[in-house]
C-alpha cells in the first residue's frame, strides 16, 4: 500500500507524479536560497525608490488600492464589442431563459431526426 501512494498517474499521453514535482521544486528552492545568501546584506527598502505610477504623484498608501472592478480595464476595453453583445444577451428576464431552452431543444432535435 505504501508504494501505491507514490505511483505515477497515467494520463492519456504521458505521466504525472506530484512527489517528483515537489522534490524538484525543493531542489530549485535550495539553489535559489544559496544564490540569495551570496548577495549583499545591507539592503533596506528605502534604497529602492518610489513606485512609478505613469508619472502621476502618489497620494498616499491607503488610496493607491485599485478596486476590484477596475483591475482588468485593458482586457475589457480591448474586447469591447464582444462584451457588449454578451451583456445584452444576459438580460435577466425569465422569458429569455426559456427561449434559449427552446432554441437548444429544437437544434438538438433537428440534429437527431435529420430533417
Amino acid at each position, binding site marked *: 500500500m505504501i508504494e501505491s501512494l507514490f505511483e505515477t498517474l497515467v494520463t492519456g499521453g504521458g505521466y504525472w507524479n506530484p512527489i517528483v514535482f515537489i522534490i524538484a521544486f525543493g531542489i530549485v528552492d535550495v539553489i535559489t536560497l544559496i544564490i540569495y545568501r551570496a548577495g549583499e546584506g545591507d539592503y533596506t527598502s528605502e534604497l529602492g525608490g518610489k513606485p512609478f505610477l505613469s508619472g502621476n504623484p502618489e497620494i498616499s498608501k491607503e488610496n493607491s488600492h485599485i478596486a476590484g472592478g477596475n483591475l482588468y480595464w485593458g482586457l475589457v476595453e480591448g474586447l469591447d464589442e464582444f462584451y457588449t453583445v454578451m*451583456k445584452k444577451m*444576459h*438580460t*435577466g*428576464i*425569465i*422569458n429569455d431563459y*426559456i*427561449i434559449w431552452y*427552446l432554441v437548444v431543444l429544437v437544434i438538438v432535435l433537428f440534429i437527431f431526426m435529420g430533417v
Partner: protein
Amino acid sequence: MILNLPFIAVAVLLLIGFYGLLFKDNLIKITMSVVIIEGAVNLFLVSLGYVEGAVPPVYTMAPFEEPMAFAVPQALVITAIVIGIAVTTLMLALSVRIYQTYGTLDTKEVRRLRG
C-alpha cells in the same frame, strides 16, 4: 380513440403553455403557464394507458370479456400531480414576497440580477 384526440389536446396545451412562458410579462401568468404545461404532460401520460374498449383497472368484480386499461400510468400521474402542487404553491408564495419587496410583478422590472 377518435382521431387521436387526446394527443392533439396535449400538443395544443403545450403550445398554449409555452406561449404564455415566452411572451407574457406578469409573474402570475408565468405560474399559470407552468401549471398548464404540467397538465399537458399529465394528460399525455394518462392517455398512453388506454386500450380500445377498456374498463377501469379495478380488480373487484371485474368483467371478464373487456380488456383493462393500464394501471401504471395512473400511478405515475398521481405522483406527478402532487409534485405539481408543491411547485405551484412555492411559486405563488415567492410571487407574494416579490411583490412585497419589489413593488411590481412585471418580469421586465424584476431583473435586478443581470449581467
